[in-house]
């Protein structure tokens, strides 16, 4: 796969103008995600009310793939129930690692399928998944996650 196919208009747009950039005031959950290999480093904060994500934001330093993924993630999960959002985390992760064929069966990824091609760019899979895993860690009240070493959540992904 040609990575140029991945850098589509929508990804470039979210990279340039990230949605929900910053911190949520009075957040109830937060987590920090780090990909030491390429230096992606983001923070996700959320406010959960009655088991639903009332507000979510992110900030940090990262490549375009990671930033666009985080930006589109925030727009996708805002307003969702935690369980629904966590299911979406799982679907995104399966798509990015090539376990879910977005052309087949039912899923809730919608426009997030622009990231499907990342499965053929092994060096970039972690960039796309990092925000999602950070969100998942925030749900679980884990302070920090890393994509490397003993904490690598994708080691056996």
């Amino acid at each position, binding site marked *: 796969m040609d990575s140029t196919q991945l850098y589509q208009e929508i990804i470039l747009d979210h990279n340039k103008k990230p949605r929900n950039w910053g911190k949520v005031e009075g957040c109830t959950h937060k987590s920090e995600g780090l990909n030491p290999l*390429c230096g992606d480093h983001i923070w996700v904060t959320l406010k959960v009310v009655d088991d639903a994500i009332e507000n979510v934001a992110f900030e940090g330093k990262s*490549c375009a793939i990671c930033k666009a993924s985080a930006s589109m993630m925030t727009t996708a999960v805002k307003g969702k129930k935690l369980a629904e959002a966590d299911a979406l985390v799982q679907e995104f992760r399966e798509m990015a690692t090539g376990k879910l064929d977005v052309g087949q069966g039912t899923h809730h990824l919608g426009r997030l399928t622009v990231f499907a091609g990342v499965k053929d760019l092994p*060096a970039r899979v972690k960039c796309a998944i990092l925000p999602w895993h950070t969100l998942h860690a925030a749900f679980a009240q884990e302070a920090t996650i890393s994509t490397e070493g003993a904490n690598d959540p994708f080691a056996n992904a």
Partner: protein
Amino acid sequence: MSALPLQTPSGIIAAPFDVEPIRADFPILGEVRVNGKPLAYLDNGASSQMPQQVIDRLVRYQTREHANIHRGVHYLSATATAAFEAARVTVQRFLNARQDREIVFTSNVTDSINLVAHGYGRAFIGAGDEIIITHLEHHANIVPWQMLCEEKGAKLRVAPINDSGEVIMEEFEKLFSPRTRFVSVTHVANALGTINPVREMTEIAHRHGVPIMIDGAQAVQHMAVDVQALDCDFYAFTGHKVFGPTGVGVLYGKAALLEKMRPFRGGGDMILSVTFEKTTYNVIPYKFEAGTPPISQAIALATALDYVTGVGLDRIAAYENELLRYATESLRAIPDVRIIGEAQQKASVLSFNVGEVHPHDVGSLLNDDGVAVRTGHHCAQPVMDRFGVAATARASFAFYNTLAEVDQLAASVRRVQKLFA
């Protein structure tokens, strides 16, 4: 591509550098296409490719010469031992060392530096003593000294660099104190390409009575190195960046210093006799070569050094200078491109960023066009911090690269710039 006329460092106009026959010696350059495009391999700073001669040497060794060395009386052991020791002599000549026993085979330059940090550092550096390095170092020339400092209560002092990426020599000299016990500096900075004035640094160190080690990992593939002319106490390099195999490195050390040093690792080959009461260490260089060494790798490394010497390091330096000049001009002409590291004296290494685009995005997109560059912090995070960037893209050229490949790089960078503009 037409041959380039050359101005060598000694000022003589040499015969034009004809790159095509050289490329023909490196099979991987012709074999590999990326994304349907010809490969432009510009990641030589991370690891270089092997000419057919080196590959053939490995094959010949494994098909006709292999056995363990220094221990068998049989034919193959004698053959392998002779080839391994001949490789040591080739390295000695390559560096112009006085004696072959001043050449130690290690597993890479990282191993060479650790050997000195243990063998010399642990024996002769104590609490309150100081070690000088520069801001340009690869992590391999920082961490072993930090570990030593931590263990001994010694202090690491770092010579600062200016905005061009050059060590500020007055500041370097100011760091010396009566407690300075060791200096270790890179010859060529891997992230920026800066060539350090190592001759002058050695003079300064010696004026203060301090031994100096030079990390030549990024130097020996670009320029002729003469350890006697430099007068440095240790010089190290790594096989896989000078067109040889992985798994072999070199440490040169002045015999008198090597003799004073403690062994690094214990085991076979580094001993003369062992009883449970006492072990007598072998003479240098064997004292530092515990266990079965990288035999085939060392032998093939010698072939690689012969190859480089055959092409001529002066001619290589002059040709690469042309590549660097052309690449620098070509990238500078692209909007938003920032070149990081603009030292007066540079080897053919070009670090750059494209506006705010993350280097990993740059690297992925360049790969689509067949261009291989390194992206990241290049194991030199302090250098990145100094220039206020998290990472860069780095093109590093070898003498088999061409002006056409520079054009391929520049066109690809231009495409990235437009995509993100």
